[in-house]
Every structure is written in C-alpha cells, then in structure tokens.
C-alpha cells in the first residue's frame, strides 16, 4: 500500500471512529461562547471586560442589580443610610459559605475593599478612594462605610461587576496580581470553579449551597471562540447554547429561526447605557469656535447612523446622558437636529467658506488657522468603531468638510487620544452606567483630562459644570440631582464639546428551549432548559 493511501485511510478511520464516540452518555454542559481568553479569573483586580464576563458566575457583590438596574439584596440583606448619605451600614447574609467551605463574614468585605478593589479595580478606586474615609466591621455580619461627605451613588457601585467580594483567607499576604488562586478561584457565587484550559475552555459546576438556591443548570462551560462568525456557526450547529453578542447582519437570520431567541437589553452596571459619542479635541484651533462644532452636529444624520451601523437597533441619542438613566436623562433639550442648511450657514459665519458646491471649505480669517487652509480633520477610532467614521465622512462631505478615518488598535488608541492628545476627533462609546456619577462625570469634569483612558476626551473645561457634578454626587434626593444633571446637560448642549450619536444595546442569543436568564453576570444561574 502506498503512503498516501495509508494516510487517507487513517484519516477516514479516525474520523468515523471519532464520529461514533461523540454520542457520549455524560450530559453536555450548558455552553456559552467567550470572545477573549480572560487569562485569569480574579475580577476584583481588573475592569477588563473579558475577565468580568468569564468570572461573573463565581462571585457576588453586596447588592445585585435587577432587570431595571435597581439595587436589590445579595450578600447584604439590608442597609441603612445615615448622616445625610455620609454613612452606609450593611447587614450581611448569615450562613453564606465560600466554595471551599469557609464561612463568609464582614472581614472578607473589608479586606476586599481595602486590599483589592481600592487598589486594583480602576473604576471603583477612581470613584471611591477620594471620598471614602474608612470601612468598619461592627460584628461578623455588620459593617459601615464612612465617607468624607455625603455620597449618593454608592449602592450602584456594589454589584458583582464593580465590587466582587473575595475571600480574605485566600488572598491575605499574597501578591494579588500573582496569586495562584486567580487561576483556581474561590467565590460565593452560584457556580464554583472546576477547570481552566487556557485558550480553550473554563468549566464550572453549580454551587449546591448557593444562598438564593442551587442553579437548575448543573454544568457550565465557557468556550473561548475568538471569531464572531465562528461563534454564530457553532451556535447554529448546536455546539454553543449562549452568545454574549451577535454581529448585526446575523441577528435577523437568528431571529427568524424558531430554535433560537435573540434578546436586547441596555447592558449591566458599568457596561450599561452606552452612548456612542464623537469627541472634538478642543485644544485644536479648528474646533475652538462653537459654531464649527455645532455645524458638525447639524451635518450629522444620526437616524442614518442608527440604521446603517446598528441596523436600526438602539436609539438616536437626544441628550448627553443616556435615556437608560431615567431620572437624570433630559428629554426636553434642543440638541442640533440634522439640517445641512444650518450647518452650511454656521460654517460660513465661522469663516469656513466654500468655492463652488462640492469643494472642501477653506479658512478665511479663522483665528489660529493660516488663510486658505482646507477643512481636513482626522477621525480616530478603534477598529470596531471606524464604521461610524465611514458614514460620518460621507455626511460631513455633503457640507464641504473632509473627515479622514484613522483606525487605531485599542492600546494605541488609548495612548494617542488620551496621553498624547494627538487627534482631531475621536469616537468613543461612553457607557453611562446606572448613575451619572459612574459613567458621565468622567466625560466632562476638568480634573479628568488625560492621561487616563476613556476620560474627558474633548478636554472640556467649565468650572460651573465641575461644581454642578460635585453638588450632584453629594445630594441624596433624586429631585435635586435631577435638577443639577438637567442644568449640566443644558450647558453641555450649549458648548457642544461632543456630538452624542446613538445609544447602543447589547444583544444576546440563546436556545429557545431555555428560559429564565438574567442580564447580570450570573446570567445562567436562574435559567433552566427543557429537554
């Protein structure tokens, strides 16, 4: 027999034998597709989205957010707010055990904040470390958060994504960045860790001791599948039961298939209520004039952006704060509507004149710009966002402005835009979170200009806005906060440091025979599947 015949035979035999052995007696786990390999599973020391998605089922926060993103009890069963919002007292759940059997107490919470979250969790550290005075444990099941001044949004920052609670006995005295437990984690969550094969799969089993009941789905496997199209095909082929995201063009196809269900929601916690925003670099002479910024806003057809980029799924932004934060969203603002005539008039007034229709406008007596300089500006974005640039380029071209799309991979984008500030306009998805203090403040206050990624992109400086944000974070009653945030949005619309384009939604897909999923990182813990 010739070599090639042997090889061919070997392939055929192994294929057929392997095909026979796939019908296994052991039950297949519930499989969810992860896009990136998390590397490690300690979500208290990073805000990396991949880690939080992969490790969410292992841990709990003091509170949980319900489907309307309102805080509800989790590790804390009740709480009191005193001293006008400067003191929060939490009563913890009794009888909770870590996955290794040790009891959970207030000391774990204090340790997690002091040694992990306030040092390594970038969002929680940035928002709490400057206002938090100390954390006291009164007894094993009671603890108090003392603040320097009244602090309103705390309850929005204690869920499993912003503040997952870690076991003190595992982390005490070990460098948290190199603790082997990051790869063999111990939590209190609805699933416990079984194994982690890097680049391939993370396996979990239901925690039969879970305080809100043992999950109905007993085995969970997170498969790492980097390619989005492969994820969808694996989903259709039945290898995957849950997709955390579905590419736009595939959604309708999956929707029409009776085997599947496609659901959209505004996200969870810090990753929720995202507004895709175009930021002007206000340090550049070309964007000093508010008439130019407003002209760009008028030239932007956001309805078309919604239809072409998001396939109509989501919402045209009508205020600086997302409509998902109901109390703070200002619905009555006059933000510049799509109107090319007004855009052209404003540009003429600002000194950007066009020769004949269709030409690029050039400068005439514009401060800081040499005469006859054509209006050519860059549009900097991460690879996933440049589709916004392509459509904005076409829209702005219609009023004589030339936008040049410059895609940069994420690490370079963060450095170029926030550290070097070497850009004209940049596109960013600002996730507002569940409170303006979490995801809106960072976008406007002058203390947050560079070098920090996803901070105040525009370099917008307005001392009135700064003090309004401070006042709003200290005010406890919603009526006062609503008034303050409304004023902030009025000023923001007047100054137009950004163009607020569209509000995006998260899309998940799962088997129609399964139901009961939540929008939290515990997604599968409350679900069950019919056979």
């Amino acid at each position, binding site marked *: 027999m010739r070599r090639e015949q042997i090889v061919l035979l070997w392939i055929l035999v192994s294929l057929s034998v392997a095909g026979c052995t796939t019908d296994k007696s052991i039950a297949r786990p519930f499989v969810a597709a992860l896009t990136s390999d998390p590397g490690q599973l300690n979500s208290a020391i990073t805000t990396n989205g991949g880690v939080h998605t992969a490790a969410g089922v292992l841990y709990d926060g003091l509170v949980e957010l319900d489907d309307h993103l309102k805080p509800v009890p989790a590790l804390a069963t009740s709480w009191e707010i005193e001293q006008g919002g400067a003191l929060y007292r939490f009563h913890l759940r009794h009888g909770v055990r870590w996955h290794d059997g040790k009891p959970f107490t207030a000391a774990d919470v204090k340790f997690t904040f002091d040694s992990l979250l306030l040092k390594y969790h970038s969002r929680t550290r940035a928002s709490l470390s400057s206002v938090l005075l100390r954390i006291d444990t009164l007894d094993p099941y009671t603890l108090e958060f003392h603040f320097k001044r009244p602090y309103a949004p705390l309850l929005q920052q204690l869920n499993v994504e912003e503040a997952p609670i870690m076991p003190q006995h595992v982390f005490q005295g070990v460098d948290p960045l190199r603790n082997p437990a990051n790869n063999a984690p111990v939590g209190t969550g609805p699933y416990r860790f079984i194994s982690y094969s*890097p680049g391939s799969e993370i396996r979990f089993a239901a925690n039969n001791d879970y305080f809100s009941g043992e999950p109905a789905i007993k085995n969970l496997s997170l498969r790492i599948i980097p390619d989005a199209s492969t994820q969808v095909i694996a989903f259709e082929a039945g290898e995957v039961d849950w997709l955390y995201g579905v590419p736009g063009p595939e959604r309708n196809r999956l929707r029409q298939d009776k085997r599947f269900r496609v659901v959209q929601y505004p996200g969870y916690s810090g990753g929720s209520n995202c507004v895709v925003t175009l930021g002007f670099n206000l340090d550049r002479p070309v964007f000093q004039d508010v008439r130019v910024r407003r002209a760009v806003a008028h030239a932007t057809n956001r309805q078309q952006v919604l239809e072409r980029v998001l396939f109509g799924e989501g919402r045209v932004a009508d205020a600086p704060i997302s409509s998902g934060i109901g109390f703070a969203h200002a619905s009555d603002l006059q933000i510049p509507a799509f109107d090319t005539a007004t855009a052209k008039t404003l540009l003429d007034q600002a000194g950007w004149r066009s020769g004949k229709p269709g030409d690029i406008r050039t400068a005439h007596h514009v401060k800081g710009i040499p005469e006859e300089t054509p209006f050519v500006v860059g549009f900097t974005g991460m690879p996933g966002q440049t589709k916004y640039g392509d459509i904005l380029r076409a829209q702005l071209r219609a009023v004589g402005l030339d936008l040049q799309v410059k895609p940069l991979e994420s690490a370079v984008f963060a450095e170029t835009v926030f550290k070097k500030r070497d850009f004209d306009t940049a596109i960013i998805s600002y996730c507002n979170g569940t409170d303006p203090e979490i995801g809106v403040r960072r976008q406007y206050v002058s203390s947050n200009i560079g070098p920090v990624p996803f901070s105040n992109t525009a370099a917008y400086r307005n001392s009135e806005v700064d003090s309004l944000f401070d006042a709003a974070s200290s005010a406890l009653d919603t009526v006062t906060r609503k008034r303050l945030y409304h004023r902030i949005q009025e000023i923001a619309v007047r100054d137009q440091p950004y163009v607020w384009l569209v509000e995006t939604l998260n899309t998940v897909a799962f088997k129609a025979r399964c139901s009961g999923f939540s929008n939290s990182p515990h997604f599968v813990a409350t679900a069950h599947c019919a056979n």
Partner: protein
Amino acid sequence: MQWFQQFAAFRCDSALRQLNSRFVVRRLLQVVPTAFGIVLIGFLLVHLAPGDPVAAVAGENGDAAYYAFMRHRFELDKPLPQQMATYFERVASGDMGTSYVHGRGSLSLVLERVPATLLLTGTALVLAIAMSIPLGAFAAGRPHGARDIGISAIVLTLYSAPAFWLAQLGILVVALKLGLVPVQGMTSAGSTQTGLARALDVAWHLALPALVLASQEMAAFVRLTRAGLIDELRRDHVRTARAKGLTERLVLFRHAMPRALLPVITVIGARIGQLIAGAVIIEIVFGWPGIGRLMLEAIQTRDTPLLLALFMTISFAVVLANFITDLAYGAFDPRIRVR
C-alpha cells in the same frame, strides 16, 4: 514501503556517519547569538511600539494615581535601559518574566500552548507533503497536459484564497451543512475523556483546521516536485536506469525523486515560520488553543514578557527547523555534506 525504509535507512545512516560532532556543535552555537539578537530586537520593538500595557491590562476609567500605581507594580516606571538590564539578567537565569495579563510565568504559558500548535502545524505539514508529492509526480507525468494544468490551477487557487475565507467556507460546508466535524475547539465541551477516547476526540476536531492549513501549503510543494521531476526525468542517469531495465516505479522513486525533492526539503524548512504565521488565522477561526492566538492577544494587550517569551520560542523553533533541514539535506545530497 520496503524500498522506502531501506532507502531512508541507508541515507540517514550515511549522513550521520559523515556528520561529525563539530558540525552539529557549530550549528548549535550559532543558535545562541541568534536567540540573543532576537530577544534584543524584540525587546526594543515592543517598547518602541506605541501602546500602554497598563491601560490594556488593568482596565479603563481609572484615575491618574491608579495608572501610576500599576506602572510601578509592573516595573514600567523605570528607565528603559534599566528595564532591559533587569530583563536580560532574568532571562539569563532562566526566568522569562511574569505575564501582566495572566500573572503567571510567561514561558510556562507559552509551553503549555505549544503542543496544540505543533499538532496543528505538524499534521498540516504531513498532510500537505503527503498530498503534494504524488500530485506533483502525477502532474510531471505529462507536462502541460490537462492533468498538469488542472492540478496547478487547483493548488494555486487554494494558495491564493485568503485563509480566513477558506476556513469559514470549510466550517459552513463540512461542519455546519454536512455535520462531519465540529465547528470549533480542540476537544468537545466539558469533555473529561482520557487516553484513546481523548486522542480520537482531538483528531476529530483537528481534521478540518489541519486540512485547511495544509491546502494552503500545497502549492509550493506540488510545483517544486513537478518542476524537479520534469528536469530529472530528462537526465542521463534516469535514461541509464531505464535502460538497465528497472521498473518505472524504481526509476521514479530511487533515481529521479531523491534529487527532485532537494528543493522541496529546503522549502519545507523555510516554510516553518510561514506555517506558524498561517496557523494564527486558522487558530482564531477554529478557536484552536495554540500559540498563534496567544501571540495575537499578547500583542493586543502589550503583554511584553509574554510576547518576548513567544518570540524566543518561535525563533528557536525556526532555527531548529533550519538545523533539521540542513541535516535532511545532507542525507539526500552527499555533495553538500559539511565536514
């Protein structure tokens, strides 16, 4: 098969007899400065490239104090020459540094992913050679005939087709429509099998990605085999062999093929680097847990220690492949044997 075993045994035996240890030692010594140069260039390239590992690894929305703190933790606040000195000191003592993202030793991270890539690329290489040499010989039978043109057209099409497209097409047709193989991964979800059952599970997952990768590698091998054979079959020693009354099979395999395959061997050695590069895309599309994907992730997160460990491992693999190519070359061609 017997003829081939005799042939191989004879060739390797004589090659090894004639290879003195000085040749091997000299070739191995060349690896050391090469590896040093690779680490040096790699270190400088990674640090000169824009991008900040702290933002990528630690997360977004921190304040300036946070990023300064993390930079200090990763020892990125020191001047570059000092960072470089520390790094080389560590490498010399066998410590390739700790990955920023994984928080574990970067060399062990790389080594635990090497078998998957070796399995994928090795299988693809064997498949490509096993398919290419007979195809090349078949095409050489009648140069510019219908079968020659047909074979050339097919292998060149496979070579020119973008890897991700070919892979997606393979997944759609073979995995989704026909259901012959799984869509992605190296093992079945939640699989706890061991031994033969696990090997078969892996082979079942391996079949499609290896075939796609192999199909892209075939063009050069087929074309070279074909060209070499056409050339050889016209030569005097082949005519003599035929005149001696040898069977056409013996003439082909014993007299024409060894000399025709010399350029093929050279190309196989040179393709190892290409093969690993090609495997990156295949690993991404098929969710195969190899080092290609690890490298892409390390680049995206600017995970310098991990990236350098990968550079070292891959360069070492290429140097080793070249070394083996040289040995194999000597076995097939006595003229270039180094003394």
